[in-house]
């Protein structure tokens, strides 16, 4: 009976010691120091990545400003062209025979386009 109890205590103690050892190894308290000392280039790369992120943010802000300005100019220009097209004068323009005679002559330059039967 006494031996049986002693074996139980010994088994329980062995299990506790086993799990404590496992937890100690899993925590690997020596890891940070080793990594920090292992590769200083990693820290350099981290600093470089941070600089690139900051630069990207600056470029993005600049692009946003330029695109906003472009959209304003585009809207203004579209409004101007729409106003010109909405006015009655351009509608009538092609209808009225133009007073300016065509100016055409044979030349030797390389053509930029062609005319053909349509």
């Amino acid at each position, binding site marked *: 009976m006494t031996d049986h109890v002693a074996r139980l205590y010994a088994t329980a103690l062995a299990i506790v010691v086993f799990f404590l050892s496992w937890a100690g190894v899993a925590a690997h308290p020596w890891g940070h120091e080793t990594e920090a000392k292992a590769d200083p280039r990693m820290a350099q790369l981290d600093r470089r990545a941070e600089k690139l992120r900051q630069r990207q943010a600056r470029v993005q802000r600049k692009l946003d400003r330029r695109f906003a300005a472009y959209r304003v100019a585009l809207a203004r220009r579209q409004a101007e062209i729409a106003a010109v097209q909405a006015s009655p004068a351009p509608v009538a323009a*092609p209808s009225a025979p*133009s007073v300016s005679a*065509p100016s055409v*002559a*044979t030349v030797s*330059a390389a*053509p*930029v386009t062609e005319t053909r*039967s*349509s």
Partner: protein
Amino acid sequence: MERHAFHALGTECELLLDVEPSPDAVLALALAEGEIRRLERLLSRFRSDSELSRLNDAGELEAGDDLLAVVRLALEARERTGGRFDPTVHDALVAAGYDRSFEELAVEGAGSPAAPAGGAVRVRGRRIGLDPGVRLDLGGIGKGYAVDRAVAGLATVGPCLVNAGGDLAVAGVPAGGAWPVGLDTPAGELTLGVAQGALATSGRDRRRWRADGEDRHHLIDPATGRPADSDLVTVTVAAPTAVEAEVAAKALFLAGEQAAAAEADALGLPALLVTADGRVRLAGGLA
């Protein structure tokens, strides 16, 4: 040089703008393309929902600005050319077998007996009325009108050229002094320098098909209602606008070589005639 090409009006369209690349240039080119496509939606006889098709179906219509303008131009042209240009050839074209857009047209198809042209078209205010059985085809003149409109819009940005399958107009002088435009002839390629105005070419060398075992082409003689039997193959004419060039090219084609040369000389319309026997003849002061 900014260049923009696209397919519209049943042909290849090309916009040239002699300016440095800029957002304004891109926008102007896009608007010019939009204008051409808008006019195609209004004036095409191949679209059942076009304003022209609604007029042809109903026989009368309260027309919008553009259809009204093109119909008036077409009627003036009919008057001016003594009927050689006539917008009422719609049924004659269909009878000849040209009853759908040329891309969809079968190489060999069936035709119908020739249909007469020359029916009455009345314009009162904005209302256009057609006599029973009269339908309009505004294909060529509509293309010229679209070119004139597009070039007027692009000209606000810089020197430009608009070419819709050979009907072209320019505005402003490019850096080289004139717009060099190529033209295939039996004598080789000629280049015409266009500093002002428009060019159009009409001919029976393209848009050809066979129906009932015979060759057909799209240039209808309104007097017979059949594809014109001319001793010319192509006529290229310069005029102040693309509409006028288009009308003149068709009218001179139907006139035949001798009358066409005499008329071009009398009107001072620079013209290049290619005859059926392969000769190239310049007229109207073209040199």
